[in-house]
């Protein structure tokens, strides 16, 4: 483990609960590297999670950390950000957490363009409960609750975040680590709602059941299926089938929610004072 990453970990709370080969540690390392690159003060950084494998990650990170209820991390984070806008607020969430039970909060946090960065650890499965299908499990993939193949269509969360009003949207995988750190650095430097989805291998429950192989095989699979946003624009939907589109989807500036609310406070105080 690099000294840089280690210096931002609560090593006394290890060993961690993640399985061998799990991609989540790679994402955690990338989050720490991006925060370090931006020289963000850990005392002024708030990391919030819901429930699931990825939601246990903040516990190992030496920042202000809050492990909440299933799906609700963004709602807790909204309260914190509005209460203390000066904090850098980051939500780490799994695909089941953010896209199923917490889907509504994702839509509305993006719509408000509140200054929260959301990082989705997309392992396409409910890992903590041992392998049920999630809204990001591909159609026809196997899961404990989809023994004949998944019937559901899966979300494109980046399109969802974009449609809902996020001002920065990007995707990477645990294989494309340098890209991931760059995207996270950008996401964490935004004022408004930023969203980064990261494909993260779950060899234990997803890879094994779907015969993709080991963690290394799964990361190689990401490498082979990945295509940049720019290259993807030239392909038809049929040609994009099964591809993982990586890179920046959106990067714009719009008024941030807590800054807008501060103007409300100023107006209300002025009105009360009779000005």
């Amino acid at each position, binding site marked *: 483990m690099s000294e840089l990453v280690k210096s931002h970990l609560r090593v006394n709370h290890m060993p961690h609960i993640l399985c061998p080969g799990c991609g989540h540690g790679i994402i955690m390392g990338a989050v720490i590297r991006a925060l370090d690159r931006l020289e963000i003060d*850990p005392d002024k950084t708030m990391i919030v999670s819901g429930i699931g494998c990825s939601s246990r990650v903040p516990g190992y990170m030496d920042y202000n950390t809050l492990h909440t209820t299933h799906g609700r991390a963004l709602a807790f984070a909204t309260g914190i950000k509005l209460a203390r806008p*000066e904090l850098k607020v980051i939500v780490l969430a799994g695909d089941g957490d953010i896209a199923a039970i917490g889907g509504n*909060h994702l*839509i509305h946090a993006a719509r408000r363009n509140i200054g929260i960065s959301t990082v989705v650890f997309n392992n396409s499965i409910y890992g903590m409960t041992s392998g049920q299908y999630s809204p990001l499990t591909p159609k026809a993939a196997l899961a404990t609750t989809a023994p004949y193949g998944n019937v559901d269509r899966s979300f494109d969360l980046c399109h969802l975040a974009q449609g809902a009003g996020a001002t920065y949207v990007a995707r990477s995988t645990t294989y494309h680590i340098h890209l991931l750190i760059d995207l996270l650095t950008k996401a964490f430097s935004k004022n408004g709602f930023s969203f980064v989805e990261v494909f993260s291998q779950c060899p234990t429950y997803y890879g094994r059941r779907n015969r993709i192989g080991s963690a290394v095989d799964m990361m190689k699979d990401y490498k082979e299926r990945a295509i940049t946003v720019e290259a993807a624009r030239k392909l038809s939907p049929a040609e994009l089938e099964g591809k993982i589109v990586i890179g920046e989807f959106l990067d714009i500036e719009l008024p941030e929610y807590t800054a807008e609310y501060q103007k409300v406070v100023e107006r209300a105080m002025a009105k009360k004072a009779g000005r």
Partner: protein
Amino acid sequence: MSSSRAVLMQGNEACAEAALAAGLKFFAGYPITPSSEIAEILAERLPQEGGKFIQMEDEIASMAAVIGASLAGLKAMTATSGPGFSLKQENIGYAAMAEVPCVIVDSQRVGPSTGMPTSPAQGDVMQARWGTHGDHPIVVLSPASVRETYELTIEAFNIAEALRIPVILLLDEVVSHMRERIEIPAPGSYQIINRKKPEVPPRDYLPYQATEEDDVPAMAAFGDGYRFHVTGLVHDATGFPTEDRREARFLLHRLVNKVQRRRDQLAYFQTETVEDAEVVVVAFGSVGRSALRAVRQARAAGMKVGLFRPKTIWPFPEKAFRAAIARARAVLVAEMNLGQLILEVERLVAGRATVHGLHRLDGDLITPQEILKRIEEV
């Protein structure tokens, strides 16, 4: 210091103004009858005081945002009614487990389900106590007038901050919407309690350090330089999850005992002519007013009748109630539900007197005449 002033005020308005007087700085809510005025008033008033108001996407998110804001150091509240109260329950349990002070107002309407949104009921007595899963501490206060709504709202914040627990303020549609003339007490004439802050430097801070005696841990705010972890999992003094049985037992017992060992201090109630009463009427909230009139009418007619009106519903004011029924041969519980508080009353009476119910559930108030008639019957 300014003096008190007399105003005509609605129950919901008194609740909102008292919350501000208690130091409220954050409100998150979702529109629902008959509590919406609280949100509307605070949307206007909170930013005037430098506070924050947000209308969230649902009731669950409102409760979550309130907990987040409280952890970030602000006194925080939400307000709702039956259907929304049901939705908030999981996160109310989180507040109990993670020891996050907050106030939840539930203005009761007829249920179950959508029920009768504009009509009063008292069907949330048990949900207020046991709505979230698992054993947990909770305090539930229920006022009968606009003035009392003001007082108990301040008290709800004081208890929440002192004990680091969620406190439920149980109103009903009538108390929420009726208008009465009240004297707004002068600031400084009532006590305001704030959560205990850590006195140790950040490196020595343990967010859940407590003993059986000193059982409410000091609470730092996120962002104040105390980097700590909060979880809804069973945790030890460090705040990190543990599977250790001894730690689990210590935590879960301490949480519940925070309220249990203070139950006499938390006991707010009103009694009327109970000293020699052969029949004691138990009623709370708006029904408490009908009951008071019925008891006075019964006395005027020469009957030895008294009233016990709990303002603290949970924990039920056990000691005071036992004293109030010392000479009673019968206890009559009047409530706008099909029998909830009566279960606690029966438990405490324990066969020493007969217990009778007067339960009405149709969207109308229980009248003094109905109570008087039942007094005559028992």
